[in-house]
């Protein structure tokens, strides 16, 4: 970033691109050209800034001004006011809801204050399509220093750092490398698992979109440590932008001699290929992933043998996830002690979470292990939307569990989350408020598991189907009290007898909601009521004639014409026509409609 006086960074992550951030980049370029400023100001499309709630994000460097919810129409003003006249454009600054003041830079935004960025260190700072920007931020320095060490020394450093697998299991990364390194074989493989399947997690994609070189560098380091000459990235075909940026990055790394034969004159040969996933959650499991890469159905097989011994094409294979790899270069650049100083005793470093659901600040965050759920949800996440009451937070995706108010002060790390009945998982974190029915949430996750079960083992294939049937029965008002016990017994059998991680964890959302929200199950079963008012078969909408002003808003918005009434007179819902979509309830400005 030497020759330019100013840089305009525009978020080019998927979330912001969905709000036309690519057009913002183009418009900036034309606008700057018009003013003859294109030699002095550079526009960069970066990776995800993380603050997706307020996207599209535009950041001006060097003064670090942070603009939120910028649109194509704002570009002209930013250039004329900020770039030319040097005055920040007030209307696009972040508005702090607590202090009611405007904040100009990220250092003073609550969303960023408690974050520590290791895996996401370059996302939102560099142009992911330019290797030189990565190199300028210590990129490939770690590879250079590792190539001067013995493989065993470098592996020991990863081991000492205490880094654990960020894909969900939390297996010590260095140990995995060591096991694979010890195997004797003519060919070994390094596999990067980028088959992010948790519905509600997008950290791996953001890393590949925002900083693909960190993964490439780490894979090469891993290859050197375990004695592999070949790397493979298994990525979802649904991630076109990430695939494209990864391809560009691979080509640039080859041009710079950082992949290929005799890397940096060390005699070490390594190259990386891409393999495409085709939408199967179970392929996040190592053995299933390997079968899929070989062109078969992605069904898991019994371990042992572990991939470290017999993996891709029967050769020793080391599988790590994207976020795990993204941590590796930093460990070598900043040292084992530095890395160990962050986090907790048994969970070192940071974890990236996709914070979503009913919080004010939805986005991608990276926090040190040991931070509490309360800090994440209320300080970083800015609390619950619309002033509603916090009810639960779901971590670990379809394999995890729902935690409640009483767990809010639990420090987040691998072991603590398991102890309270959830898990770290890949990092989905969905916040729920008083309007969410926990039985429905359990059913939602079960539907996902049913879709995604590969069908190979009976407990998962049939057991989950039965679990789901019982939940449907309960949410439709036909449950009996014995059903609740059946859920628990069946859930535990599935956990104990399934073949792979998918089945072994699939009942978790059911079991954890049973533990934490037993009363809600009872209300569905005994009183035939849904306390959150979400289960359609158990609720109906009514208009309170005293509160209704006859404004006709509900009447005009009802999609099925179930509401009738004269202007300025109380309205009425025809229950036989009502489809319980809830539109009238949301639209009513006088709180005249209630869920009964």
């Amino acid at each position, binding site marked *: 970033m030497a020759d330019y006086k100013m840089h305009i960074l525009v978020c080019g992550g998927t979330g912001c691109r969905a709000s036309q951030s690519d057009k913002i980049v183009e418009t900036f370029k034309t606008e700057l050209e018009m003013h003859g400023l294109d030699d002095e100001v550079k526009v960069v499309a970066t990776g995800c800034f993380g603050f997706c709630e307020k996207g599209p994000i535009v950041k001006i460097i060097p003064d670090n001004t942070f603009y939120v919810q910028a649109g194509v129409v704002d570009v002209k003003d930013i250039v004329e006011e900020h770039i030319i006249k040097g005055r920040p454009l007030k209307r696009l600054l972040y508005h702090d809801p607590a202090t009611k003041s405007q904040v100009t830079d990220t250092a003073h935004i609550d969303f960023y204050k408690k974050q520590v960025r290791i895996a996401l260190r370059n996302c939102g700072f560099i142009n992911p399509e330019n290797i030189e920007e990565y190199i300028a931020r210590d990129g490939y320095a770690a590879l250079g220093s590792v190539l001067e060490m013995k493989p065993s020394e470098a592996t020991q450093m990863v081991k000492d750092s205490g880094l654990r697998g960020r894909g969900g299991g939390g297996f010590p990364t260095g140990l995995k490398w060591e096991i694979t390194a010890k195997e004797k074989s003519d060919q070994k493989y390094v596999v990067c698992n980028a088959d992010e399947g948790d*519905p509600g997690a997008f950290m791996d994609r953001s890393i590949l979109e925002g900083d693909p070189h960190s993964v490439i560098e780490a894979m090469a380091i891993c290859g050197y440590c375990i004695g592999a000459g070949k790397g493979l990235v298994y990525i979802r075909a649904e991630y076109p932008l990430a695939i494209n940026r990864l391809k560009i990055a691979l080509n640039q790394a080859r041009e710079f001699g950082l992949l290929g034969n005799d890397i940096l004159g060390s005699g070490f040969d390594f190259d990386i290929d891409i393999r495409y996933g*085709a*939408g199967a959650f179970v392929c996040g499991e190592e053995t299933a992933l390997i079968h899929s890469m070989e062109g078969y159905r992605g069904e898991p097989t019994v371990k042992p043998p572990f991939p470290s011994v017999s993996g891709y094409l029967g050769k020793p294979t080391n599988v790590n996830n994207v976020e795990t790899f993204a941590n590796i270069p930093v460990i070598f650049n900043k040292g084992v002690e530095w890395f160990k100083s962050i986090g907790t005793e048994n969970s070192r470093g940071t974890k990236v979470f996709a914070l*979503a659901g009913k919080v004010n600040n939805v986005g991608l965050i990276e926090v040190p292990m040991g931070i509490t759920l309360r800090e994440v949800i209320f300080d970083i996440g800015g609390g619950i939307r619309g002033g509603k009451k916090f009810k639960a937070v779901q971590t670990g*995706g379809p394999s995890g569990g729902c935690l409640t108010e009483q767990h809010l002060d639990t420090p987040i790390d691998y072991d603590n989350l398991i102890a309270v009945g959830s898990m770290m998982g890949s990092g989905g974190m969905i916040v729920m408020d008083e309007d969410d029915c926990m039985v429905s949430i359990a059913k939602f996750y079960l539907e996902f598991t049913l879709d995604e079960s590969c069908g190979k083992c009976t407990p998962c294939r049939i057991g989950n189907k039965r679990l789901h049937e019982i939940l449907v029965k309960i949410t439709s008002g036909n449950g009996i009290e014995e059903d609740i016990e059946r859920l628990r017994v069946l859930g535990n059998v599935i956990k104990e007898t399934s073949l792979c991680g998918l089945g072994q964890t699939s009942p978790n959302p059911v079991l954890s909601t049973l533990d934490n929200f037993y009363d809600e199950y009872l209300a569905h079963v005994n009183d035939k009521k849904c306390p959150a008012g979400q289960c359609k078969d158990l609720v109906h909408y009514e208009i309170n004639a005293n509160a209704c002003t006859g404004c006709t808003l509900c009447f005009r918005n009802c999609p099925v014409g179930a509401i009738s009434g004269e202007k300025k007179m109380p309205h009425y819902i025809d229950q036989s026509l009502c*489809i319980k*979509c809830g539109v009238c309830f949301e*639209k009513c400005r006088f709180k005249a409609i209630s869920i009964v």
Partner: protein
Amino acid sequence: MPKVKLSEYATNTVKEVCASFNNSEGELINVLHQVQQKLGYLPAEVQELVAKELNMSAAKVYGVVTFYSFFTMVPQGENPISICMGTACYVRGAEQVLDEFKRQLKIEVGETTTDGKFSLSALRCVGACGLAPVVMVGEKVHGRVAPTDVRKIISECKDGCLT
């Protein structure tokens, strides 16, 4: 499924794709990706031809096609509508939006309208959770969709079709 005769174009496309992967059995998934990209979907006849070219059983090809949700055996509508059913969208009301699409288009998830204009699918997390609930029509992303927006999205597509 009624038997369709593959056009010469389709036959050649399949053969070319298979050849570009050296007709190797291990490349099956890559072959299917490219064939689907070029032909839009993977009907039984295409699968049979792929099996023949890669020298493997049609059952194996069918097994793979039906295993992965990305592969489809029915043609998509002119406006493929996908509703994100990731958790973040779900808790912000994606199910109500999906119900409204089903009601207005009179089709279920995985189906295409009889005029071939719309198809409906549910997908898992687009990664634009800040915009939840999210609906995608082709490549276009609609964010913060409420059931009341459904009619507008459908009519926008219809207008698009006419022009």
